[in-house]
């Protein structure tokens, strides 16, 4: 009987390997330059903020030059923070280019977007250039390493961040949090739905 379980286990494992082959992050824009980290633990951190909290402020350097602070939007615009785990990886490479053609949804709802990773500026520069011209700032949480991600509680044990979205209203209050399965891309419609809620 034990043997039967063992063999079923082996077969199950092989099926798993086949079904989890990586199908994301396949834009030919990046040619062969995307590193495939394989299947990762869906989440690997503990949130330190919750919906209704005041969003911790931060100031980070932007790829386009200068510094961007969360507080500079206070009283003016809602802000979406999109943390992605790492440059040059499959899912991340195909997330922001989608937001890049969804600018209208942000504008219609008086919101802006800040893209953040823990990569350094030169890496982010080379990587985001493959995406075309992005309309939103891309910020580097590289040094002190992942300090902002840590404040929000989304720094994973290996030093990259979760794939996380925070929607912060113009008063600086967190209205939505999605710490997503790192292996999957969040649906755009869910974010758009949350943006609409801000102005109801």
């Amino acid at each position, binding site marked *: 009987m034990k*043997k039967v379980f063992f*063999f079923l286990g*082996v*077969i199950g494992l*092989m*099926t798993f390997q*086949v079904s989890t*082959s990586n*199908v*994301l992050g*396949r*834009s*030919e*824009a990046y040619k062969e330059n995307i590193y495939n980290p394989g299947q990762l633990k869906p989440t690997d951190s503990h949130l330190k903020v919750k919906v209704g909290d005041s969003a911790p402020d931060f100031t980070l350097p932007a790829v386009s030059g200068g510094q961007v602070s969360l507080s500079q939007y206070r009283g003016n615009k809602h802000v979406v923070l999109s943390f992605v785990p790492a440059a040059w990886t499959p899912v991340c490479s*195909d*997330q922001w*280019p*989608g937001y*890049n*053609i*969804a600018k209208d949804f942000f504008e219609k709802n008086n919101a802006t977007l800040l893209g953040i990773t823990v990569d350094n500026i030169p890496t982010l520069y080379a990587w985001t250039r*493959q*995406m*075309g011209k992005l309309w939103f700032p891309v910020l580097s949480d590289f040094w002190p390493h992942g300090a902002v991600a840590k404040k929000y509680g989304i720094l994973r044990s290996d030093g990259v961040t979760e794939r996380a979205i925070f929607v912060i209203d113009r008063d600086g209050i967190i209205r939505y949090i999605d710490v997503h399965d790192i292996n999957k*891309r969040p*649906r*755009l*419609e869910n974010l*758009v739905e949350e943006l609409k809620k801000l102005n109801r």
Partner: protein
Amino acid sequence: MRKLSRHIYFSFTLITLSFFLLSASAIAASAPPVEGARLPDVHLKVPDNPDDQRYLGLTGKVSFQIPQVRARVVIIEIFSMYCPYCQREAPKINELYQDIENNEALRGKIKLIGIGAGNSAFEVAVFRDKYKVPFPLLPDEDFSLHKCFGETRTPYFIAIRIHDDGSHKVIYSKLGGIGEAKQFLKQMSKLSGLEAGGSK
């Protein structure tokens, strides 16, 4: 003892068999359609939009297979709303569509469809609206079609020639953009024999 060896023999056969079965399915999923071969048997949902239904000649149907499209040649673009290369390519594919529609000899004979790998209906609609895509774009939210077509990177183009008896063969299957639209259309006409007034 004999019983034990029978067990081992049986289990070994089972493992070998399942390994071959699984690798076969893995190979089938990891290779895009080959020129000269048939498309994999995939059933797609007929788009809700009546214009799309008319264009494809599928009015009144619920699901279809690509060779059932009313055309001599169907060009399939596997794309993603999140793929920057596909975004850059979009105006060119629109131009290809217009060139076909403006050509009396080819209008109605060459049809285009897009399959949004991993894209929900909402995400496909964002791409359609942004680039004013005039031909049907079908969502493939769970990557099931993308898997059947060999998990290609995007954009990927496949063209099939449909014969009078309903049979078909793949005449083009390549990764990357189409290059210059007029040149690509010439190539399609040549490969399908439409230009030379070949078998209809």
